[in-house]
């Protein structure tokens, strides 16, 4: 068979293009199990959920940090891992696990949080998978101690290798994780800026299909404004690239009650549908505690899909300056170098990008954030960020109690809601 230059197919890419055309919100779990039979059942259950779904292989922490000997030890001893060890299993094994599951009607993405992703990309490509997630910043700073410079180089190489699939008629897809950055307490404009910059990083490597992420934060109006800003900047900066926005259900400390947890994922689904996001990653009722079961994943997918149905459009509301801040961050970074990777390294060194409360050695650590009385996430200190100062820099001393209060703001609000009462049967 000869492949015409513009007739590439990517399972994930094509599926998302079709879903967007039909205006169907795609919902996706963060699912990963070490046992291949459980992983396979989980994917089949995801496919069978009453929702438009794509599948996920979330990889385990040993694989993420490249400790393949520890994976072997765990598999030998039968100790459970927190995800699917795709490298140790090898492509033939994974292809067999996915046989009859992965297809045009059910694409699968590998999610992995690896700062040095070379072996993982080799394994997923060899396993016939055409979608993954990550980025040179978002898979570095929140994921350990690898120097940013090394991660940028490793992601450049991996991204090029992934883009090379296009020469074989495959359209690979990458999602930036830039919209998450430690999961919580990072103000929206920074999330938007890093998401766009990582999208651009991938586009320059030749990836033509990307998704830009944004993680639900503390205030729906603010989130709607951020999602709109992300769309505007992506439209400007990614011409010629097929892109969509993916929303993450709250990534910080999660409600521990069932009604709180499911209430939060339902609100995320309404936010996604109401702001025109194309895809939503869900969280389950077990999030606060442990790795969720297959049934808990399916429940979350279905709760989300139901909540998204008929959700009213959410206007982006008053302009509080998120687009302006994000644009200043992006412009300042891109002004540092014509190479996006080099610009990102330089930007962190200069403190133009600086993530609150991040312990990574390459993060300046001169910014801080707070949650306002009306529940918005704002800067309390902007360090060297090229954005207007929010007023006099506050240097409130951080205490363990103060930190826990800020981290548990969303959790407390959702756990405190009155659980829906079961209807009485007359």
């Amino acid at each position: 068979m000869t492949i015409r230059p513009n007739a590439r197919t990517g399972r994930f890419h094509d599926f998302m293009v079709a879903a967007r055309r039909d205006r169907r919100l795609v919902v996706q779990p963060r699912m990963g199990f070490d046992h291949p039979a459980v992983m396979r059942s989980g994917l089949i259950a995801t496919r069978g959920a009453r929702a438009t779904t794509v599948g996920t292989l979330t990889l385990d922490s040993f694989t993420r940090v490249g400790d393949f000997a520890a994976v072997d030890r765990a598999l030998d001893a039968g100790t459970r891992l927190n995800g699917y060890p795709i490298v140790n299993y090898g492509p033939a094994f994974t292809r067999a696990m996915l046989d009859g599951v992965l297809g045009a009607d059910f694409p699968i993405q590998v999610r992995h949080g690896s700062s040095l992703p070379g072996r993982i990309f080799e394994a997923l490509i060899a396993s016939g998978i055409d979608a993954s997630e990550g980025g040179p910043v978002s898979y570095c700073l929140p994921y350990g101690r690898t120097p940013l410079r090394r991660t940028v180089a490793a992601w450049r190489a991996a991204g090029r290798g992934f883009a090379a699939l296009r020469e074989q008629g495959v359209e690979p897809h990458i999602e930036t994780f830039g919209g998450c950055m430690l999961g919580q307490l990072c103000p929206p404009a920074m999330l938007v800026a890093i998401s766009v910059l990582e999208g651009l990083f991938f586009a320059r490597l030749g990836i033509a299909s990307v998704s830009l992420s944004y993680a639900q934060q503390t205030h729906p109006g603010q989130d709607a404004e951020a999602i709109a800003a992300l769309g505007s900047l992506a439209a400007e900066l990614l011409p010629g690239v097929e892109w969509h926005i993916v929303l993450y259900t709250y990534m910080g400390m999660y409600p521990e009650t069932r009604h709180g947890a499911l209430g939060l994922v339902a609100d995320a689904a309404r936010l996604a549908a109401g702001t025109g996001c194309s895809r939503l990653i869900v969280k389950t009722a077990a999030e606060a505690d442990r790795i969720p079961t297959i049934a808990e994943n399916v429940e979350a997918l279905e709760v989300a899909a139901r909540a998204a149905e008929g959700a009213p459009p959410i206007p982006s509301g008053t302009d509080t300056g998120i687009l302006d801040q994000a644009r200043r961050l992006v412009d300042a970074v891109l002004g540092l170098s014509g190479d996006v990777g080099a610009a990102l390294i330089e930007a962190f060194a200069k403190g133009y990008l600086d993530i609150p409360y991040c312990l990574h050695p390459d993060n300046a650590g001169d910014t801080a954030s707070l949650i306002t009385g009306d529940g918005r996430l704002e800067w309390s200190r902007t360090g060297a960020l090229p954005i207007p100062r929010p007023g006099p820099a506050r240097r409130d001393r951080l205490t363990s109690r103060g930190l826990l209060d800020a981290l548990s703001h969303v959790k407390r609000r959702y756990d405190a809601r009155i659980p829906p009462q079961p209807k009485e049967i007359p």
Partner: protein
Amino acid sequence: MSHIQPSTPEGPAPHAILSSIPSDSHTWNLLFMQLLLSEQNWSVTNLGPCVPVEVLRDEAVARQPRLIVISTVNGHGCQDGVRLARTLRAVPALATVPMVLGGKLDVDGSKAATMTGELRDAGFDEVFVGGSAVTDFLGYLRRMAPATATERT
């Protein structure tokens, strides 16, 4: 990182090394524990996430802390923790330094009491999990206090 470095407590404070396990990248737990310890008048060296066991061992040998605190939540705490404890305990200089572990240690909600035995056998003095972990840990620190008070005089 001025805003998160604890200010040096008054007087010579006992020193604790705080660390995660090699495979765990979570940091909010570490930041929380760092603040908690410094509020209890400990001076803290926070080694951060994804700490290779050799790095932790060398830091501990060099710094001779009064306490080693391992905090991890990714679900690999039992497996990584056992190896970590054995490696540290094999070093004569670290054979008796108090060493504790806490957080979310397995992928099932840290309910199994069985793992605590294995972790203790490997060399941890205490294992803190579940809703009472922080309170129990504060109690443990208080029970250590006489020793640290002596050290201060």
